């Protein structure tokens, strides 16, 4: 066993108490599963391109309750507008949270409180997202301290995005936090949720977000990952869609030493639409790994994935897209595209766009490209008097901009600024703008 596994195993031996029986069962199953599965290595097919050796070497302690002061809040990116739930080290911080602007009948709050006060509303959903035999889902189930819960009744329409803020603040040694969120939308809900991940110090943030869409709902989820440079981020997103629903996940990954975002969508009703987009900007020795699994279980589903990566330094980008079309899921229309821009000699990309098709009346496609900046376009800009690094920054931004423009307008300007600042020589673009 690695150091990380040993230290995590100690945490598993001291399970959190309290809560209803189904929550206790979830924790037990999670602990058993993790003891069996252990941390994945590159020998696991699903992790062959992303090494967690750096994580395995850490002595991890469950992240203790923490209270960031005003300066720390600023360093973590500041507080987004209300309504917001702020979780620090996986626990809801009521003082930093602000629930104004939530429509009547909606519930937003702490998972621990919801488990105590309304267990029946949670039981059909909590821990039921399609993550089977997944070490990090198991770990989160076993060790989550608290979490964010958002329950939206039938017909609810959110006027503004709900912000779910996940901060991890490590102490002296490496910490492990298990942020968890559960969003249950009834029938015909209209909602936008923004999840933000940030932190300080050396830590593992192994998060799990579960989303349930009742029939005819439309939900958009923005995911903004700005973890600390030393952090390991594993973010799991499980979505189950009812009939006639539309779901869009838009991920922007900028931070962490090693970050893995894994989305699994079960299209469990007829005529659903599922979109998963991602932009990742990695430099230095960062690893950004994206894994999207779309399960077309019913007829007439549409799914689209578009991922774009900008890789500099010795960064590594990984994309795995797996579309499964089950027998009987006729009239499925699935498309995947993964494009990558390599800016340096040492950056690398690995992509696996996969299709598993067991129905015949389907339209499925995937495409992928890997390349560098177009020398002719660079030359054109330079011939117009733009210096080389600004020209590079402009073309890089042009590649990434499509993803930013797809974001809901409430976060677009902010993300544009963050992404531009992360691009090599992006500062020049800001100056020019």
């Amino acid at each position: 066993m690695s150091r990380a596994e040993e230290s995590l195993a100690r945490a598993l031996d001291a399970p959190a108490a309290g809560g209803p029986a189904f929550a206790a069962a979830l924790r037990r199953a999670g602990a058993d599963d993790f003891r069996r599965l252990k941390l994945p290595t590159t020998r696991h097919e699903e992790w062959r391109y992303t090494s967690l050796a750096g994580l395995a070497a850490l002595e991890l302690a469950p992240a203790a309750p923490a209270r960031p002061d005003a300066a720390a809040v600023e360093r973590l990116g500041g507080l987004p507008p209300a309504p917001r739930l702020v979780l620090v080290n996986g626990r809801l911080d009521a003082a930093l949270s602000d629930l104004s602007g939530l429509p009547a009948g909606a519930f937003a709050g702490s998972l621990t409180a919801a488990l105590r006060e309304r267990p029946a509303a949670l039981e059909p959903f909590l821990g039921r997202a399609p993550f089977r035999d997944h070490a990090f889902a198991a770990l989160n189930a076993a060790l989550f301290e608290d979490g964010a819960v958002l329950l939206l009744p039938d017909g609810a329409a959110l006027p503004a995005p709900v912000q779910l803020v996940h901060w991890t603040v490590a102490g002296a040694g490496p910490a492990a936090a298990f942020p968890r969120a559960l969003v249950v939308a009834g029938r015909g809900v209209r909602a936008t949720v923004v999840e933000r991940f940030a932190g300080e110090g050396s830590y593992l943030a192994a998060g799990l977000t579960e989303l349930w869409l009742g029939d005819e709902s439309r939900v958009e989820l923005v995911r903004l990952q700005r973890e600390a440079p030393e952090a390991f981020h594993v973010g799991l997103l499980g979505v189950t869609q009812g009939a006639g629903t539309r779901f869009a996940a838009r991920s922007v990954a900028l931070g962490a030493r090693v970050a893995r975002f894994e989305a699994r969508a079960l299209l469990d009703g007829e005529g659903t639409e599922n979109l998963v987009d991602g932009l990742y900007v990695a430099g230095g020795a960062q690893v950004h790994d994206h894994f999207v699994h779309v399960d077309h279980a019913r007829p007439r589903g549409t799914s689209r994935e578009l991922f774009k990566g900008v890789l500099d330094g010795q960064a590594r980008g990984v994309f795995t897209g797996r579309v499964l079309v089950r027998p009987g899921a006729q009239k499925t229309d699935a498309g995947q595209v993964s494009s990558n821009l390599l800016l340096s000699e040492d950056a690398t990309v690995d992509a696996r766009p996969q299709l598993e098709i067991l129905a015949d009346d389907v339209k499925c496609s995937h495409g992928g490209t890997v390349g560098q900046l177009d020398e002719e376009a660079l030359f054109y800009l330079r011939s117009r008097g733009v210096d080389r690094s600004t020209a590079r920054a402009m073309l890089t931004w042009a590649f990434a901009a499509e993803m930013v423009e797809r974001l809901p307008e409430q976060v677009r300007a902010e993300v544009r600024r963050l992404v531009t600042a992360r691009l090599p020589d992006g500062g020049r673009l800001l100056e020019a703008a």
Partner: protein
Amino acid sequence: MSQDAIRELTEQRYKYGFVTEIEADQAPPGLSEEIIRLISAKKGEPEFLLQWRLKAYRHWLTMVEPRWAAVKYAPIDYQKIVYYSAPRPKKQLGSLDEVDPELKRAFEKLGIPLAEQARLAGVAVDAVFDSVSVATTYKGKLAEKGIVFCSFSEAVKDHPDLVERWLGSVVPAGDNFFAALNSAVFSDGSFVYVPRGVRCPMELSTYFRINAENTGQFERTLIVADEGSYVSYLEGCTAPMRDENQLHAAVVELVALPGAEIKYSTVQNWYPGDAEGRGGIFNFVTKRAKAMERAKISWTQVETGSAITWKYPSCILQGDDSVGEFYSVALANHRQQADTGTKMIHIGKRTRSTIVSKGISAGRGQNTYRGLVRMQKGATGARNHSQCDSLLIGDECGAHTFPYIEVKNPTGQVEHEATTSRIAEDQLFYCRQRGLSEEDAVSMIVNGFARRVLKELPMEFAVEAQKLLGMSLEGSVG
């Protein structure tokens, strides 16, 4: 090559008609060092080959059978296989009338000439032509150019230096489970050496091969094209092939030295089993080529047979400016399973590769494309384009695509496209309206779908392969 010449060439086989002292020359079932020593001794092999086999065997013992492919089959008992049995003639039939009518029908549909039908079915045809002279002319023509084309066993005897130098240079003895097994026990196969600057004047084919019939289930092929040479090699044939051995684990190694070009075409139509998939061949093949500077490798395959096909003809593009191509049509009907694709490993600068894969699934067939494109750090300016299309016929089959793309050089250009679709109702309707039967319509559409691959085949092969696709789909519609 004219039909007469083909017929002439096909006669010579009986000249070598296995009249040697081979009865009951068979090793007991099972695998051990003794068996390998026996195989090597029976074949009168030099010491280096024996040591090579033993090394492979010892390595094989440490390996586990891979399970990652999307294929399902009952466990294989490796101790029940007979690893050495000397070649023996197949039962000969008196005339074409004795041939299994189903087989005859297949021959007719494929348009195979009568004389050839007889040869394929194992009918003892009177040698009208002087087969000795044909074989001699044929061999003479190649010898004139200095080309060596013979069975692997002959090569070991006559050209041990060439064999020792190149054997295992592309697929090492311990490469993978099935390749290691093959390396330990391979029975026979083909060997080709084309000298520097020589363009081989004819398509080399196992079809017209003088030797190396009955090479058994562990076939080994080694083709070396020396600098600036060219050779086109055809393997297999469209006619249905039956074999008593269920497991086939062949190894094919190609070496293209600087400026050389090797074109390797395969048509595989081994027995796929009955409609329930019972008794079909397991075809687990390792095929790999190494291309040096400016060399070119082109793999073309039409895979319609076998219960399970599991093979990935690959190119190691080692030299600068080398080129790799892979054109594949794989068809899985009834209960057939095909897991096939390619690996393009770009090592040299400005290396280029093209992948065109067309998978057809029908009945309850499962068809998987699995491929890797890797741009190594030094592969500056390398390019790849991959196109993987799947066609589904019926709602109980499956089409899967698992491409792996690994890029470690920023100047690499990699493009991958894949689509999956079924035969459109309107296309079928259009054809039916023009008076085509449904089967003919499907066959026509499928051939259109596979056209880009079929046109890479040498002409005679391409015509038969088209018919073969149509035939293999019989009973899959309606």
